[in-house]
């Protein structure tokens, strides 16, 4: 697939923006802070409903504006689809597919698929387990959008169960006298046995929810990883010109026996995983109550990355860490391409500057046959010449994308950005009024 056109309104630094894109390689060149990443971030948002840079929506909306709009025209198998997202912090975001509004934004997942690689991805190797879990789960959703619902159910169960562990901890810890009629004890009174039983039964209920949904999520992650691992080793070696045996092993929070099977690459059945979660929950119940935290389940798992015999985290050199992060992303690209019979959009945000010349050249060769590649760079010369020559290069300056730079043949007419600075609009070539395809926001559901 490829993105043919991107429209922004009040997204990051852009009051409005229209950007025409073509298949092949597009390179956006400009000094830091000019708005290159903002553009590719918007495309990434269409694919994942999230940013690769920030965890909340607020920074995505232009400072002072209430709402951002991102609209993309995507072409797949010669058919074009319009997808539009309305980002309103503090309120439910809304989405539209073609002309029709969808019930929930996540219903548009799968329309745009991207694999985005950015300096932030170094955290895949050096950062917390949550970074690696997010990598797996985002890939899961890109592969099969229905996992988005399972993921959000699971997160909610963990939050509900955590809240219960915290609030009911005093009930679980003490053993009180029996009092009929009223269940909730007054402050200072010992809890009744009924209150304790009720809390324990409620915990059982959330345990069973956690096990059911957690087992599905875990199973899906393990299947995904099984498919990803062979590509990972190949991609790592291809970018680094080595035979390093890059591996990724799933570390589960389940009890030892099952965790060992999983670490060996085995994928147990969903029902077995469900039982294992319940069993482990039983084992750790006292500790969970003591700490008031949910200690078992996919939200506590990790992906252990290693090179040969050594773990990557703490051992890999800077260059090796980059190759590893890149290897994971390229493997994800291959997996999606193979699975869906269609190329996702590959986005390389500010990465060439981080790689040595050899890695740059090899990466350039590896991605030469991708349907669409969007590259940002502060210095054009960091991007291998064959890539730039095969495609189009634009200069981005203070949110203004200029005409294609010489040396690359102009493709379709590129759009122009209108930028406001200090309140006064900077004039630009054919500035176009943005007109939203979404209805005016309904004031009643504020």
């Amino acid at each position: 697939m490829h993105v043919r056109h991107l429209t922004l309104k009040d997204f990051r630094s852009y009051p409005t923006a229209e950007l025409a894109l073509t298949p092949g390689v597009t390179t956006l060149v400009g000094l830091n802070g000019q708005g290159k990443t903002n553009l590719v971030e918007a495309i990434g948002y269409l694919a994942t409903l999230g940013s690769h840079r920030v965890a909340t929506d607020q920074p995505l909306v232009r400072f002072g504006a209430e709402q951002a709009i991102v609209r993309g025209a995507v072409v797949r198998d010669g058919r074009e689809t319009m997808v539009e997202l309305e980002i309103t912090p503090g309120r439910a975001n809304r989405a539209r597919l073609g002309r029709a509004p969808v019930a929930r934004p996540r219903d548009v997942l799968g329309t745009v698929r991207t694999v985005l690689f950015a300096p932030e991805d170094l955290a895949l190797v050096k950062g917390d387990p949550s970074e690696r879990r997010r990598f797996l789960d985002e890939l899961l959703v890109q592969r099969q959008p229905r996992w988005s619902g399972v993921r959000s159910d699971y997160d909610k169960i963990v939050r509900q169960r955590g809240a219960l562990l915290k609030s009911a901890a005093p009930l679980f810890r003490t053993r009180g006298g029996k009092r009929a009629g009223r269940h909730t004890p007054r402050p200072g009174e010992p809890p009744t046995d009924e209150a304790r039983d009720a809390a324990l039964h409620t915990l059982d209920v959330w345990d069973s929810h956690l096990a059911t949904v957690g087992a599905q999520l875990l199973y899906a992650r393990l299947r995904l990883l099984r498919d990803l691992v062979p590509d990972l080793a190949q991609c790592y070696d291809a970018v680094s010109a080595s035979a390093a045996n890059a591996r990724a092993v799933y570390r589960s929070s389940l009890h030892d026996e099952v965790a060992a099977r999983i670490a060996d690459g085995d994928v147990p059945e969903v029902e077995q995983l469900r039982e294992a979660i319940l069993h482990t929950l039983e084992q750790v119940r006292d500790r969970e109550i003591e700490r008031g935290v949910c200690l078992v389940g996919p939200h506590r798992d990790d992906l252990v990355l290693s090179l040969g015999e050594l773990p990557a985290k703490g051992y890999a050199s800077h260059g090796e860490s980059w190759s590893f992060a890149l290897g994971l992303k390229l493997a994800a690209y291959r997996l999606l391409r193979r699975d869906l019979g269609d190329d996702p959009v590959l986005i390389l945000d500010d990465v060439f500057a981080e790689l040595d010349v050899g890695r740059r050249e090899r990466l350039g060769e590896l991605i030469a046959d991708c349907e669409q590649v969007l590259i940002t760079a502060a210095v054009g010369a960091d991007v291998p010449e064959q890539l730039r020559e095969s495609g189009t290069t634009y200069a981005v300056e203070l949110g203004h994308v200029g005409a294609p730079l010489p040396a690359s043949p102009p493709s379709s007419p590129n759009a122009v950005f209108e930028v406001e600075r200090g309140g006064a609009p900077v004039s630009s070539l054919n500035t176009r009024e943005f007109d939203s395809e979404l209805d005016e926001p309904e004031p009643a559901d504020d």
Partner: protein
Amino acid sequence: MYEGAVQDLIDELGRLPGVGPKSAQRIAFHLLQADPDDVKRLVEALTEVKQRVRFCQTCGNVAEAEQCRICADARRDRTSICVVEEPKDVVAIERTREFKGRYHVLGGAISPIDGIGPEDLRMTELMSRLASGEVTEIIIATDPNLEGEATASYLARLLRPMGLRVTRLASGLPVGGDLEYADEVTLGRAFEGRRLIDV
């Protein structure tokens, strides 16, 4: 900020569920410009509802007497009870005309995040309704979302040992939704296809 009376009205409206500051303002100015008779009817309806309507002592549904219309109706089947979260769910199910028994309104669902546990729901009242042994079937029609499911499982665990037939409205209801928004046909079908609940 507006002058006294207008701002008071906006503040009061803004406290209603689902009404944000902007809507509150819109409604307030709508009322300011509305026909005095229309506003009078609204005021009367509000006063009336507070004076006459209360909650049914048996089932927790809205009622104009000690018992609601459904509990007071001798033709309703006394052996089966449908458990719902809110009075509005009773209305939704009544529209399907599939159910001939009586209801029990819990007043919410289990949600630790919101500090709502079983003791905050009308579960003890349900248990005392079952004491006579007249009721043999319980249909759990809590919302098809996580909290509704948790409440259903909790109830099922509680009720099963009592030898009752406990069923859950069949899925087919949109997951993650609100019962009241399910259309009649879907909800009716869910009633026909209700399943015994596993706990």
